[in-house]
């Protein structure tokens, strides 16, 4: 991980483009989340405005968070550290900029089509076929750019971050195509129970084969750099990488434990969900031992602070996820807000935090100037941290209220007023996250453009 003349004067246009994309869509995505949360408190707020109905806002929120905020943010960092780790230039910034523009076009098309009610109705696979094609196209373009950069490298050894990003892009290209059933353009679906099995295989791999490896790649880059200490263990890197691919891909059916799917498949998904502690702890021990005794350095760098917090969230969300796959636990937690809380720890607390950390780590280095405002970045850090912890607390409570009331024989309608107050808290916490996203976008733009700081 050294820099030399070959990498020193790059414009990092692709990285820049992905960073701005991420910051921009974070604002839109959190607004959609806030709007949806508000509709659950005041359902007639947007009465009879079809394209703002909750059932259309929700998939827009989810898809924008996954593909508009987190993925581009993590790729922004990757397009910065790939040339540096490989001691070369990025293969083609021209191709990279085209990719970024196409990515944004895809997101706009996704928002417009979902708002208009064009959806395939399958969670995480809602987008209609033409947009699926655009998504596959951008993944192919990203892969070409990255793999060609790898091929022209001057550093013989591939660092673990490079493995993770290459695998994430190629595997997601494959699972996305499979999960969206792209050979069935009209329905985008299989028939009956196998459709659910495929959907959750793909759906869970959005986290397992896209967000997690991309986030791990950023953590593996930022933490050793910020701590200025070598990575703790190459063996753990290997174990974490291969076990992630093997174990994570088996667990999708834990979404279907209460559905008539084959029992052997349920058993596989439960066993592997518990076995997730292997890739999770291999990664975390590696990162945490690298940072051992150097938390001061992490605290000093806002990017590293975001990333390190993200790794702690990863610990919690993964242990929780393993427990939620146990049928006895799931009797209480399934179908209610517990799961929504879990999803937010994973996507915002873990992958989102690390995406923001990657952004704030690479932006000053791309700009060649300090971050426009460390205060704003710190403010965003605390808003997101308080937001996601608070969110998780209130939604977990709401989920427990729902789950236990249902098991006690109460109807869904009877429990709605009981959880109203938690919905109010959730929207308030969402407002904090949204405001900090707006300030974050301002900070990103001011760091890159009109930055009054001195060049270093």
């Amino acid at each position: 991980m050294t820099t030399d003349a070959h990498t020193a004067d790059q414009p990092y246009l692709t990285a820049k483009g992905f960073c701005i994309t991420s910051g921009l869509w974070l604002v839109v995505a959190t607004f959609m989340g806030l709007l949806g949360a508000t509709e659950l408190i005041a359902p007639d707020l947007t009465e009879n405005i079809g394209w703002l109905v909750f059932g259309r806002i929700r998939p827009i929120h989810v898809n924008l968070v996954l593909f508009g905020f987190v993925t581009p943010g993590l790729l922004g960092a990757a397009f910065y550290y790939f040339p540096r780790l490989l001691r070369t230039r990025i293969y083609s910034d021209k191709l990279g900029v085209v990719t970024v523009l196409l990515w944004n076009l895809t997101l706009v098309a996704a928002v417009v089509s979902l708002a208009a009610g064009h959806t395939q109705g399958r969670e995480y696979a809602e987008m209609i076929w033409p947009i699926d094609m655009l998504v596959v196209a951008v993944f192919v373009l990203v892969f070409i750019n990255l793999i060609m950069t790898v091929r022209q490298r001057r550093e013989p050894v591939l660092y673990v971050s490079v493995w993770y990003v290459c695998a994430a892009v190629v595997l997601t290209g494959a699972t996305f195509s499979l999960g969206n059933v792209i050979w069935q353009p009209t329905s985008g679906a299989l028939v009956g129970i196998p459709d659910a099995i495929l959907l959750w295989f793909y759906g869970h791999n959005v986290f397992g084969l896209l967000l997690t490896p991309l986030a791990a790649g950023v953590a593996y880059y930022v933490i050793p750099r910020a701590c200025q200490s070598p990575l703790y263990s190459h063996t753990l890197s290997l174990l974490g990488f291969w076990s992630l691919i093997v174990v994570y891909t088996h667990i999708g059916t834990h979404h279907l434990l209460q559905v008539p799917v084959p029992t052997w498949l349920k058993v596989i998904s439960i066993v592997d969900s518990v076995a997730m502690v292997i890739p999770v702890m291999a990664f975390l021990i590696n990162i945490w031992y690298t940072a051992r005794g150097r938390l001061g350095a992490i605290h000093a760098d806002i990017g590293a602070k975001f990333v390190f917090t993200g790794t702690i969230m990863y610990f919690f969300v993964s242990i929780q996820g393993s427990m939620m796959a146990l049928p006895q636990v799931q009797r209480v937690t399934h179908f209610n807000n517990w799961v929504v809380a879990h999803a937010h720890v994973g996507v915002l607390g873990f992958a989102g935090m690390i995406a923001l950390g990657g952004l704030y780590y690479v932006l000053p280095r791309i700009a060649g100037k300090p971050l426009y405002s460390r205060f704003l970045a710190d403010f965003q850090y605390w808003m997101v941290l308080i937001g996601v912890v608070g969110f998780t607390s209130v939604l977990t409570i709401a989920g427990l209220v729902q789950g236990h009331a249902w098991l006690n024989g109460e109807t869904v309608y009877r429990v709605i007023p009981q959880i109203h107050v938690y919905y109010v808290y959730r929207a308030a916490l969402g407002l904090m996250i949204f405001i900090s996203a707006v300030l974050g976008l301002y900070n990103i733009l001011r760091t890159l453009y009109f930055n009054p700081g001195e060049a270093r």
Partner: protein
Amino acid sequence: MKMTPMAVVVGSLMLLAAIVFMVVYMPWATRVEEPSEILRPRSDVEARGRALYIANGCVYCHSQSIRTIDWGLGAERIAQAGDYILDQPILLGSARTGPDLSQEGGEHPDDWHIAHFTNPRYTRTLSIMPAVAYLGQQNLEDLTAYVQGLGLKQADRRMQRQRFWKQEAIRAYEAGPVANVEWLHATVPEGWRNLPNPYPTSEAGLARGHKLYQDFCLGCHGPVGDGMGPAQPYLYPPPLNFTILKDRGISGGILYYQIMNGITGTAMPYFKKELESEKIWDVGNYVAVYFINQSDANTEPRGIDAANEP
């Protein structure tokens, strides 16, 4: 292990292929193809309604998947793989922000659904579902047809029952208030008709009844019990005006029975799954005291006073 680009890309793709074979292809190759006893194809209008259900994201809040543990929720039938073999995509859902709809067909008559879709709070005052009147009348009817088909053959049986009793209810309603009340009372089994409300009227009981009335009844019967709630324009026969019940043989038992069991064919749902015994007596007495102005609470025969009575 030396990690080359080839090892990373090809190695991970090979692993993925093996795992997809195991956890995606194998379940598909061994899938259930036997239809369950309730399966039937959906009609064209139901298919159109299903497309609307998908387009408006109903699936995010409503599951269509009854679990074994849902027997505790009052479910009558557990989902089987053979129920879904015509569904593309399958709409199991992942949350119950609203109730499960697997067996929703025939629970209510069509007009109840139109009122509910126009604004869910017209029929269910605490609902947090969005209004979907923006779809327009034709689409609301298609969506209703789809929902009325949920449960397939079981739903068809319930719909037949709804249609039969709707004719009876309309005939009674159109014969005038006296005949209507007589018919309503006659549909209640004899034993219930002569049963007074066994609990004395109390301030606390009326307060409980008031709250329950707001949460469950107000949308149709209106805040003053005259049957002019916001759902009224959509429903036929219209919601009952309680004031006409006075001096026409009403009893606590009749109120209890009708609230518990509902009046199939009309928009009056059953509440036996949502309200326990005391709550039904309380809301019945609230209606009797405030709207009918004639309560038989705590009159003979009343048996031994309950231990909690003041």
